């Protein structure tokens, strides 16, 4: 039974323990992981920074310090290798909110009533572009000043304020308005990470030979377009995959698994 939820449990442990490390650093001064997801200080030595925030700062005309540039570089390299959007499902706390909205949608059978999703999933890439343009003209990191993602994790560490309203808004939006609305359509941070993970080595692969086309994976997948090859061909999923591994768990035929990409073989 636990095998069906092993990745889900691992993800929740990862998300919650990262948040917990930030919180104990702030409250009790146990400085393993200080700061927040915008910029962290690991063991008082290594800086890790959000590369999207740093990019916006550059467009806003800020002078980037060496610490921040190095921190953003380390984070970018990490996600470049293991898959950009693994940030979304293994680190980002907003994922817990949207996953629960999604779960409730399935329980309440909303998806069966409304099958077609009217909105484009490319909106997030446009939002990246727009946030750079606005950052340039306004002289501030534009998305950082409205980002519900930063708001939520900063809120959890430093006090939430009306940030609770943000959480509720995202939850209700995903539940009633648009399936996978925030993470799957809008969030430019997720979009930025999926660009970073374009050529990532670690990906979920689909094995066409084993697949029986039961389509269970397509029910749980939050980025359904990445599974376009189900029952058709054997290939790695697309860059928008968050590596949440729910498809691996629900597949009874062992047709989906994490695999290292082999670029030589793919090219042919």
């Amino acid at each position: 039974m636990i095998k069906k939820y092993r990745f889900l449990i691992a993800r929740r442990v990862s998300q919650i323990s990262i948040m917990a490390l930030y919180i104990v650093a702030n409250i009790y001064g146990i400085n393993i992981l200080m700061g927040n997801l915008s910029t962290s200080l690991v063991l008082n030595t290594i800086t890790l920074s959000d590369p999207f925030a740093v990019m916006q700062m550059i467009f806003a005309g800020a002078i980037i310090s060496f610490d921040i540039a190095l921190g953003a570089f380390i984070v970018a390299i990490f996600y470049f290798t293991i898959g950009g959007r693994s940030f979304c499902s293994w680190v980002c706390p907003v994922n817990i909110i949207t996953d629960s909205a999604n779960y409730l949608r399935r329980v309440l059978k909303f998806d069966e009533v409304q099958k077609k999703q009217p909105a484009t999933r490319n909106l997030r890439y446009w939002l990246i572009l727009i946030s750079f343009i606005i950052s340039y003209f306004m002289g501030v990191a534009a998305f950082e000043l409205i980002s519900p993602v930063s708001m939520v994790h900063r809120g959890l560490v430093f006090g939430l304020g009306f940030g609770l309203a943000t959480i509720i808004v995202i939850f209700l939006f995903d539940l009633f308005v648009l399936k996978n609305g925030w993470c799957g359509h809008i969030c430019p941070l997720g979009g930025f990470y999926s660009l970073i993970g374009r050529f990532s080595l670690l990906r979920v692969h689909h094995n066409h030979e084993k697949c029986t086309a039961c389509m269970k994976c397509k029910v749980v997948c939050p980025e359904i377009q990445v599974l376009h090859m189900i029952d058709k061909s054997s290939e790695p999923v697309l860059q928008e995959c968050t590596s949440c591994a729910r498809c691996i768990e629900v597949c009874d035929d062992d047709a989906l698994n994490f695999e290292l990409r082999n670029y030589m073989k793919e090219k042919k």
Partner: protein
Amino acid sequence: MNIVKNYQENRRKFLLKSARTIGLVVLGSLTWSAYLSEVKASSLILRPPAAIKEDDFLATCIKCGLCVEACPFDTLKLAKPGDNLPLGTPYFVPRDIPCYMCVDIPCVPICPTDALDEKKVKDENGAFEIRQMEMGVAVVDVKSCVAFWGIQCDACYRACPLLGEAIDIVYEKNERTGKHAFLKPVVDSDICTGCGLCEKACITEKPAIFVLPRENALGKVGDHYIKGWDEADERRVKDASVEIGKTKINKKSAVESLNSGMEDLLND
């Protein structure tokens, strides 16, 4: 015929779709920018020590909260949703918790982006000198300060960490009673750091001495006036640019002007 019709319909659809997208993007960007200029305008905000100029600060601060965690007195806060301040940026409210002017200034060197610039609080030898910081300046409301009424109070004077320098007590004869003295607190804005300990200590219901950002509280003489008795002050205006205003001189003779009636004046 059908192809032409189809083509026209497709073109119409394409144009409509593009117009809709562009319209939405413009709408979104304008709302976003309006929000940003709104939060940028909140100028009555006190930043941590050694903060760079507010505009640069907003572009450079990555909102990580490391300065907040470093502050041993919990003076610094990160702006939460609902505070009506640039979201996520550090600030302090001296009336709640003032800055205690730590000699090692732990909040400054930890800043990873140099939005808090160490150089601003270091002397020539590279040692930290907290007295150099300029977070704000204390202002006395003489109408609600009881010392200006003639009631003896030196709470702010005693609370000031730069006692006798940043706040001085000026003695003055109380003409109303004829036998008492006023002991009026006077702030020297060159020395005051804006720590806010005076504001915290003030005995009146709402403090009669309070810290304002320096740009809001201080005037500027400009280059028109100098202290002729002060050599240093002459150096201040060394690079002053000279502006000469010229009024156009009437070329006509006086008699002619008088005889010309009112037409000239009216026509011009």
